[in-house]
């Protein structure tokens, strides 16, 4: 595996391309769901951590702060994020009404919103991986230390940068816009 920041950037570019294809109005629906999910994950972070500790005790992994235990924790976080992302993209989605924005501005808008959604999804996965001290190293998929670029990028990940109320503000704004249209 190459540097984590390269993988992270490549995946976000993929989301940008998906945004280009799907269009702004569909992508904004995904942003709404993701913003709400990230609000819940950050606002109830303490309770979620406690619940995961109980889960670790139930499956009897010792010690509770071992790499294996963190792998389980990370598995739960990533499963939730990936599941919600899948639901928000697949099938009947929360799409905003209207016609696509024409011209270069519309294309730029599709791309930026796609990239933003990628930042929220992939950035969150990286954030929890970093928080749990990279448990995927157990499979030889990651090697410390982080590069200087990655060290800076870690501070810019969604949950590290944006407080819970920031996500709530974004979700509330989008829901408001969806309702008034």
């Amino acid at each position, binding site marked *: 595996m190459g540097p984590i920041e390269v993988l992270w950037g490549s995946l976000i570019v993929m989301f940008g391309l998906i945004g280009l294809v799907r269009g*702004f*109005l569909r992508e*904004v629906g995904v*942003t709404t769901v993701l913003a709400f999910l990230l609000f819940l994950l950050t606002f109830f972070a303490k309770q979620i951590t406690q619940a995961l500790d109980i889960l670790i005790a139930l499956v009897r992994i010792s010690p509770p702060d071992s790499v294996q235990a963190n792998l389980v924790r990370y598995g739960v976080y990533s499963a939730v994020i990936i599941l919600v992302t899948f639901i928000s993209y697949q099938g009947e989605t929360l799409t*905003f*009404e*209207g*016609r*696509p*924005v024409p011209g270069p*501005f*519309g294309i730029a*808008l599709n791309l*930026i*919103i796609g990239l*933003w959604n990628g930042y929220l999804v992939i950035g969150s996965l990286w954030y929890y991986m970093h928080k749990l001290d990279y448990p995927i190293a157990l499979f030889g998929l990651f090697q410390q230390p982080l590069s200087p670029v990655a060290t800076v990028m870690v*501070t810019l990940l969604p949950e*590290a*940068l*944006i*407080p819970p109320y*920031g996500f709530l*503000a*974004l979700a509330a*704004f*989008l829901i408001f*816009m969806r309702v008034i*249209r």
Partner: protein
Amino acid sequence: MLNILIAVCAVLGLRRGVARELVVLIGVILGSLVAPTGARYVPTVVALGQKALGLTKAGAAPSAAALPSGKTSDLIVFGLIFLASIVIARTLVKPPKGIASRFLGTIVGGVNGYLIGRFVFPRIFVEPETVFVVSGLKAQSHFSPGNTAAAVIVFIIVLIGLGIRQSSPPKKKQA
């Protein structure tokens, strides 16, 4: 600073076109000429205004500290004439058409910036040397993670709001 002012005025000239900028140019020149004479009457007008609003006791003269100084009066008169020229240009002159109008507007805008600086700067920067003191700690505190996050969220919200506004609403089905 003068260069920045000229650049800003040139950009505004590009947007507003040559016709509007010429009106503003007349305002700037007129303001520069009238301000030294008109400034004499500013303290009288301010004192009358204070009396009319009941800010001074009846019969008592207004305090000297409350009245604008000579240089401030100059700037007030110049500013009023300048603002009036902008309003007149915006109200009476049509917006620019074509590249030529915008190009010439940029040049005249730059000239306006120079003339404004020529009038204003000697009245603000009186000393031979003016030193601006900037607190590094205070400047750095503006770039906190919280402010960065707020800027990111505001940018995304504005972008999405703009996008939603631009995407025309669906046509309503006729019954």
